[in-house]
C-alpha cells in the first residue's frame, strides 16, 4: 500500500471520527413562553459542563435569541450522547408590549416585544433548518391543548424530527402530567421539575436513549 493511500486512509479515519461519530446532535428546546425552557437548559448545562446558558424569568419572553451550549456530553446507563443544546425563545402568534408595562417602563416593554418577535421568527427558522431533534417543554399546570402547541408539534412531526415532550413544573400542586400524555399520545412524555431538579435521572436516560 502506497504512502499516499495510507495517508488518505488515516485522514479519512480522522474525518470519519470528527464528522460522523463525534458530530454533536443539535437539540432544540422549544415550547410556549414561560414553560421553563431556559431553566431546563441551564440545569442540563450545569450538570454536565458546569456553566449556564441564559437568564430565567417569571416574565414571558425572557429569552429573545436562540442560545447554544455546545458539546454537552450526557451519559446514562452505558449510553452516551453529545449534544448542542439550543435554548429558543417561547413561540407565540402574538406579542403585545402592554403585557410588560406593569413590570417595566414603556420603552423597555416596546423593546422587549420587538426583540421577542425577532426571536420567535429566528426560532421558527432554526426549526426548519438547523435542529436534529426537539425537546418540547410544557408547563404541566397549564392546558397543553393550545393552538401554538398543536401547530408546533405538527411542524416538528412534518419534518420527521425526533421529539421528547417534557412535562415541567411537576412540583406545582396544579400540575397534571396525564393531561399532557393524553394530549400527545403519539410521543413520549417525561415528567420533571427543572427548577427543583426532580426526576432528572429519567430526563438524562431519555435524552441519551432517544437522541443517542
Amino acid at each position: 500500500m502506497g504512502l499516499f493511500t495510507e495517508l488518505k486512509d488515516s485522514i479519512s479515519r480522522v474525518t470519519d471520527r470528527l464528522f460522523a461519530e463525534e458530530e454533536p446532535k443539535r437539540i432544540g428546546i422549544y415550547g410556549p413562553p414561560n414553560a421553563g425552557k431556559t431553566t431546563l437548559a441551564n440545569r442540563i448545562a450545569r450538570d454536565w459542563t458546569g456553566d449556564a446558558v441564559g437568564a430565567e424569568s417569571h416574565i414571558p419572553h425572557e429569552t429573545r435569541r436562540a442560545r447554544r451550549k455546545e458539546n454537552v456530553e450526557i451519559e446514562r446507563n452505558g449510553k452516551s450522547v453529545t449534544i448542542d443544546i439550543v435554548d429558543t425563545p417561547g413561540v407565540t402568534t402574538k406579542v403585545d408590549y402592554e403585557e410588560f408595562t406593569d413590570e417595566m417602563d414603556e420603552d423597555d416593554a416596546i423593546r422587549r416585544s420587538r426583540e421577542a418577535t425577532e426571536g420567535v421568527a429566528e426560532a421558527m427558522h432554526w426549526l426548519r433548518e438547523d435542529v436534529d431533534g426537539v425537546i418540547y417543554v410544557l408547563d404541566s399546570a397549564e392546558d397543553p391543548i393550545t393552538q401554538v402547541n398543536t401547530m408546533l408539534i405538527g411542524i416538528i412531526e412534518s419534518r420527521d424530527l425526533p421529539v421528547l415532550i417534557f412535562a415541567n413544573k411537576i412540583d406545582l400542586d396544579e400540575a397534571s402530567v396525564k393531561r399532557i400524555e393524553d394530549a400527545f399520545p403519539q410521543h413520549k412524555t417525561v415528567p420533571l421539575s427543572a427548577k427543583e431538579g426532580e426526576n432528572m435521572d429519567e430526563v438524562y436516560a431519555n435524552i441519551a436513549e432517544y437522541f443517542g
Partner: protein
Amino acid sequence: MPKATNTDDPDAPDGVQIDLISGERMDGMATMEKIRMILDGVHDGNIVILEEGLTPDEESRLIEVTMAEISPDEFNGIEIETYPKSETRNSSLLGRIMGGDESAAKLTVIGPANQIETLHKDETLISALVSRD
C-alpha cells in the same frame, strides 16, 4: 375647544368582514401568496377562514412573517384556530388535532389578535368572540 374626537375612519364599514376562502382558490397559490393574502386580510381587520388550512411548513412561515410584521400599537399578531375535517374517522380526534394525519385538510380561522378571542374549543365546537376596532 377641540371637537369631540372620533378617530374612526368615517368611511370604514360598521361590521367585521369575514372572508371564506375555498380550498380550490388556495390550490394554485404559492406559500408566500397564501401568507400575504391571509395577513393582508388580517391587517385590514378581517377574519379569514380557510376551507383547507395550511401545511405545517406554511404554518411555520406564517408565524415567522407574522412576527416580522408586529408593530407596537398597530399590529399585535394573529389568533389562529384550526379544526380537523372529520373524514378520517380511523384516527382519534386528538390524533388529528395534534397533526397526526398531516394531509387531512383542516378548517382554519385566522384573525387579528386584538380583535378575536377564543371563548371555547372542544371536539365539536369553536366559539370565538370578535370585536370591532
